[in-house]
């Protein structure tokens, strides 16, 4: 026979004003299994809690029902109270007599009756409750950061500076990401590389950070605190322990006509190459696709020229398995190429370029040392048209969202152009100017007012070439839809930011969700912006949605704190509200028949296969489902789906819920 204690709180007068608390306690006290029942003015107060603790001890209570405010308010409080008195905290249930009764009903018999019913239901439930213990999951004290752009760099440094180990992988030969390609940054116009490269170096030299460039995630298994990641270390064809980074090989390489990724195809590189002068690590890799030796079997000039004999052609890709407790995904974004826009030249006019290409043209590390010269003939363009929202906010192009950074960088581009080409003429076609951010609006105003950039609100219909000029046909909607035609020397498209290549595949590898545009999905758009739905995997930067640098850095630091707070624990303590597959005596072992139809129902991929083997022979007797408590979040969808009722949810078991419903109905 149970020994339940019932404690009805008046909540000052919040409950007792409409509910006859004394009577609720009296009626509860008459129920079978109830050992002690009382009411009190403030149950959550110190004396109230002491009352509960004393009653637990004095009456040897094995279950407690507190009739009070919402469990969302004080469930944790009263469970702790019970635990302090030696009662398992999960043997405490909260009847919501305030938000669900006293505050929503008038004083009267029906209101008190309802309170009694709710308490009755929970008394029955708590009699079926089982003591539960929090789940402890050991934590591997190391984080994996995927992607070495500014998001990854910031995350890694923040985690590392908190004393935790970080492994960073970057798929390209150098870290730095898109930020390293930028010329100046809005709204301060400070040099991107000047602020970034010190951090890149810091990453490389930090004792807590292990950096693997030219490396990709191959597989991710496990769960929060206990991930096992398999990393593919792409063969660089260079032994970095021997390479001094002297660069001789890159000058000797005969294949010099490969479009440079770093320069967005505007410049060329060799097959053995360092992506850019400030690269970290500043050592070359061989691009096998363009290397004559790999393609034709002959050349080896780099090997001959290398003073330290660091070239190793025959080394295959290697795989490395690492154990980490948390993962931060910072894989960034891409921009649409100009050939996405047939109406703007189909990628066939050399002087129609993307914003990112413009960044390179304006960059001090560009061969012109930052002097803006157009790609086709190297002339200084006298008239430049900037087209905002190229793809963005255009459902017809499949991109209904705003790419967010374009308004600002377009203003910056126009401004840079005006600064660098005196007497130059720049026009920006825009839909709206979205300059929400600290000093952003002022920045745009400066471009318009001080640098006299011509802002035209309207869309560009076509760009075509005529007599060596790019004819930009648009419309000025603020001047009564007046057609506008500009003969430009160069056109810069603010092409939409899109998910980075392979984002979908990567998300599937990690079992995290993504939106229709393949940007990774956060767990909650407001309250969990850097978490994913998979515990232990976090997001930062533009892999989640287009973001500017300040936002990316803020998110990166946010993700870092989440990681650090996770890694700083010896064990993860989790609520024991998880699903379990039943086990029973042989020959059945479990009533689970292993249909595994529940697998597709679990949003957390927490359902695993467990083989039950004969102890003597080791032969598999049956395969049943097993819930990984580290992954299960306790939604219970599998429980109500399971046909044979072989899965149950701790804290909300079938028996508990059934009993509560029937008791509510006095059935």
């Amino acid at each position, binding site marked *: 026979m149970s020994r339940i204690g019932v404690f009805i709180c008046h909540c000052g007068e919040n409950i007792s004003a409409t509910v006859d608390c004394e009577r609720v306690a009296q009626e509860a006290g008459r129920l079978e299994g109830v050992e002690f029942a009382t009411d009190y003015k403030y149950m959550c107060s110190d004396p109230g809690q002491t009352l509960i603790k004393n009653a637990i001890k004095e009456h040897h209570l094995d279950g407690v029902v507190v009739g009070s405010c919402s469990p969302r308010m004080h469930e944790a409080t009263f469970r702790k109270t019970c635990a302090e008195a030696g009662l398992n905290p999960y043997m405490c249930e909260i009847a919501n007599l305030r938000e669900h009764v006293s505050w929503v009903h008038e004083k009267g018999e029906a209101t008190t009756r309802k309170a009694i019913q709710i308490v009755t239901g929970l008394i029955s439930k708590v009699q079926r409750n089982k003591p539960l213990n929090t789940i402890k999951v050991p934590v591997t004290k190391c984080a994996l950061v995927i992607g070495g752009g500014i998001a990854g760099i910031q995350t890694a440094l923040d985690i590392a500076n908190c004393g935790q180990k970080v492994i960073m992988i970057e798929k390209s030969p150098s870290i730095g990401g898109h930020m390293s390609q930028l010329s100046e940054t809005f709204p301060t116009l400070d040099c991107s590389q000047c602020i970034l490269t010190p951090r890149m170096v810091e990453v490389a030299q930090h004792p807590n950070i292990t950096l693997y460039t030219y490396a990709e995630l191959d597989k991710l298994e496990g769960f929060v605190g206990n991930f096992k990641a398999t990393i593919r270390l792409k063969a660089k064809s260079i032994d970095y322990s021997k390479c001094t980074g002297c660069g001789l090989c890159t000058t000797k390489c005969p294949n010099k006509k490969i479009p440079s990724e770093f320069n967005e195809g505007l410049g060329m590189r060799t097959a053995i190459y360092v992506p850019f002068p400030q690269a970290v690590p500043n050592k070359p890799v061989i691009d096998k696709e363009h290397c004559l030796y790999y393609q034709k079997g002959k050349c080896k000039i780099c090997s001959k020229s290398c003073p330290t004999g660091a070239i190793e052609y025959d080394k295959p890709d290697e795989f490395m398995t690492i154990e980490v407790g948390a993962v931060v995904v910072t894989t960034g974004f891409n921009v649409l190429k100009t050939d996405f826009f047939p109406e703007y030249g189909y990628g066939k006019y050399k002087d129609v370029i993307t914003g990112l290409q413009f960044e390179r043209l304006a960059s001090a590390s560009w061969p012109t040392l930052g002097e803006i010269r157009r790609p086709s003939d190297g002339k200084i363009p006298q008239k430049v048209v900037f087209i905002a929202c190229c793809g963005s906010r255009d459902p017809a192009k499949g991109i209904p969202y705003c790419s967010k950074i374009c308004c600002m960088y377009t203003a910056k581009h126009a401004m840079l152009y005006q600064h660098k080409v005196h007497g130059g003429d720049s026009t920006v076609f825009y839909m709206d100017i979205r300059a929400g951010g600290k000093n952003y609006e002022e920045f745009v105003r400066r471009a318009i007012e001080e640098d006299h950039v011509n802002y035209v609100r309207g869309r560009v219909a076509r760009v075509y070439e005529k007599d060596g000029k790019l004819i930009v046909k648009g419309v000025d909607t603020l001047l009564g839809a007046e057609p506008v035609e500009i003969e430009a020397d160069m056109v810069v498209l603010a092409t939409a930011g899109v998910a980075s290549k392979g984002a979908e595949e990567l998300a599937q590898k990690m079992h995290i969700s993504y939106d229709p545009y393949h940007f990774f999905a956060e767990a909650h758009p407001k309250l969990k912006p850097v978490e994913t739905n998979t515990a232990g995997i976090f997001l930062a930067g533009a892999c989640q949605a287009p973001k500017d640098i300040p936002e990316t850095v803020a998110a990166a630091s946010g993700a870092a704190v989440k990681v650090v707070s996770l890694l700083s624990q010896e064990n993860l303590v989790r609520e024991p509200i998880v699903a379990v597959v039943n086990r029973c005596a042989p020959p059945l072992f479990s009533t689970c028949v292993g249909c595994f139809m529940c697998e597709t129902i679990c949003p957390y991929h927490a359902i695993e296969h467990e083989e039950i083997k004969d102890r003597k022979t080791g032969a598999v007797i049956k395969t049943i489902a097993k819930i990984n408590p580290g992954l299960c979040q306790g939604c219970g969808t599998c429980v109500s789906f399971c046909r044979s009722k072989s899965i149950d949810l701790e804290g909300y078991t079938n*028996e508990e819920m059934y009993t509560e419903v029937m008791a509510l109905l006095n059935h």
Partner: protein
Amino acid sequence: MNKLQERATDLLKGGTVKLIIGFEQGNNKIRPFFCEKPEDAEKLIYSDDCSTNNAVYLTKKELIGDNKIAIIATYKEIASIIQLNKENQIKKENLMVLTVDKDGDVTELTSFEEMEKFCEENTPAPDPVVAALIEKIDKMNREERWAYWKSELDKCIRCYACRAACPLCYCNRCISEVNCPQWLDPWKSTLSNIEWQINRVMHMSGRCTGCGACAKACPLDLPIGILTKKMSTDIKEMLGEGEGGNVLSTFNPNDKENFIH
């Protein structure tokens, strides 16, 4: 001996299979037959008149063990085997699926692709009696439907022949046998008879192959087959085909309904 019997004799003689599940002539009806000895092979017949769906035996470990067996299969068996495989209940390497065509020729279906194809080509025409009854009930008003089902299901004696005959009711412990909590009263009562059928239909959602074995097994000839039939038809209409016969454990964010406010 016909070709089927010859093939069966060879398979058993050569030890390729330990057992052949097929059909034999029973008392006024075709019934399942377990052929273990070559000399019994002459009893084997091929018929799609058997009311039983012999795929029901494929999940009975006490009969099959870990032996390689053959099943002489009609559309019903094959459709069930495909679904059982999706539910991890079949060891394909231990199962030989044989069909017999109009000319008596025996064909082995070696892959699930072949089985799917067989089902596509041999889908039986819908039973007009079942369709007519569904239509009749659909036309009733709610009170009439309730009265109809109450009176029909009141007759059920809860022998669970419908469950036993269904190849996809292979649970070791059925929900009707769960007693913590006692979801279904284990005794005959109108309510638990209705609840039992609701459970059966919910559990079959998207999985039912429409073989009709449940209805044919009912000793009282209750119209329970139309429940699963109605459910299958409506699910296709409401939710589409479902992935892998798995309707209730998958979802589409765009599922349409008109009753959630």
